[in-house]
């Protein structure tokens, strides 16, 4: 399915719950609110026919940015969906009911970043021994000072949105 059609259908279905950005002809970004996270993945995977590829988490001072990648292979582009799971207890619904292949990456995000995926069938650590201390999350950064968060900073540079993982300004295309 062509990019413009995908962007339109996502915007039509989810309205103000998503922010859509396109930074190159091969990359479409969809910033989603937590509550529609699973439904967005289901819409892309089941209704629009995207392929499930993988996921990624990026730790931030005040939360964890969770990213999944859904390529449209025939049209040669990726749709990247993002949401932000707020600290101190980052929690999201699991997309494994849509893509069972996401089981391990969600387990990895939990074990590394403490993102707790609700409705995941088995959130045991996937990479390290299950004898590890239950409250140790290797990639999670603890910030205890009062510094301004990366996410909140806005230095006027349009690309700083990308660095901070924030949705772009403006309206959906």
């Amino acid at each position, binding site marked *: 399915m062509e990019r413009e059609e995908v962007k339109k259908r996502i915007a039509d279905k989810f309205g103000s719950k998503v922010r859509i950005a396109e*930074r*190159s002809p*091969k*990359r479409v970004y969809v910033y989603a609110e937590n509550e529609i996270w699973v439904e967005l993945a289901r819409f892309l995977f089941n209704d629009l026919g995207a*392929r*499930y*590829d*993988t996921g*990624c988490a*990026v730790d931030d001072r005040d939360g964890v940015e969770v*990213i999944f*990648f859904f*390529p449209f*292979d*025939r049209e*040669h582009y*990726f749709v*990247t969906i993002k949401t932000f799971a707020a600290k101190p207890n980052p929690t999201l619904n699991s997309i494994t009911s849509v*893509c*069972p*292949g*996401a*089981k*391990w*990456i969600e387990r990895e995000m939990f074990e590394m970043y403490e993102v707790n995926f609700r409705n995941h069938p088995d959130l045991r*650590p*996937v*990479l*390290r*021994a299950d004898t590890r201390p239950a409250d140790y999350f*290797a*990639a999670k950064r603890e910030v205890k000072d009062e510094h301004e968060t990366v996410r909140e900073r806005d230095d006027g*540079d349009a*690309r*700083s949105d*990308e*660095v901070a993982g924030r949705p772009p300004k403006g309206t959906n295309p």
Partner: protein
Amino acid sequence: MVKKIPIGPFHPLLEEPEFFELHVDGERVVGIDITIGWSHRGIELLSEHKTWDQVPFLVERICGICSCSHPYAYVKAVEDLCGIEAPPRAQFIRCIVAELERLHSHLLWTGLAGHFLGYNTVFMWTWRFREPLLDVLEAVTGNRNHYAVMKPGGVRRDIPQEEIPNILKLLDELEKNNRMLTNAILDDPVIHARTKGVGVFNKDQCRLYGALGPTARSAGLDVDARRDHPIDAYDKVSFNVILCEHGDVFDKAVVRQLENFESIKIIRQCLRLLEGTKPGEICTEIHEVPPGEGIGVYEAPRGEVFHYVRSNGGNMPIRHRVRAPSFNNILTNELSVLGNTVSDAGLITAAVDPCYSCTERVGIVDRASGERRILTEADLVRLSQEKTEAIRKRFAALKGNG
């Protein structure tokens, strides 16, 4: 009565750390619990402490066999972020090295699968055919593995003109040998009996599990990053994406064998196109990596390698995510071993050509009594080879009677 059989922490076929706990009822596998992470090295975190130019040396050590694929996907992610392309000559060199790597990886898997099945001649043939490939890689890059060729913006070494006749000669020889090997595998009734209908993972399951590479294509899922997300010279050469339909061990082997011919075709085209480029023009300089994020995908021998980088404009990535194809493919064993026998389990789990570092022990647990026992590497190879031998004898007897 259901028992549990542990396999790991080193795979019997691949000498890499993993642990499978097979839940069995008699000889039938009815469940599996997979544990990975035995050689977790924190590559992503290490990467965030290296400069953009140092990271390729790190990521090519993720896997000795895919030592071109990971840096390839990484440099494409950086180039995606910077919005640049490598010069044409560098693009062709990248594709040549990457396809030489695919050839040696596929031959390595076929040899090991042959050994596991009790076909040590196949093992010895393939490894003999593979050796000159490694010699060519050494001549072209300086190393048999860990080629250190990729760098953001291009490649580190040019291919000397005098090496091209050697590569072409190798390809002619390899094509002939691969044809013989492919025919031998396709025609052997015992291999058919041992691998057809074994470890089936169908097309719909592949899509749900995000299966990649030959694992997906053996079931008819038409995905190949070289065609779907073409990088560098892959949209300048013609090649076929090999598809089968049954998703069993046999089709996985067929896909790999036939892909070897396509790789040879690609390398020949790249060598021809290399003549029209200027020697020495192999890198686009990158003076600054801007803030933002980039995605790099490359079709490694085992499937699509995925790298994601994020930059804040500094000289190191602030986030680098690596997803090897095995991370998706190993999970497919969750379904593909079900209903098969213990003697086939080792072969099925190896059929996705797993790259665990990128883990051998089989535990068997009787689900009813809770009795546990460990099968060693030798036990698994013996079980598999005994099964092949029994089939061989049965076929010989039928032939005698016929």
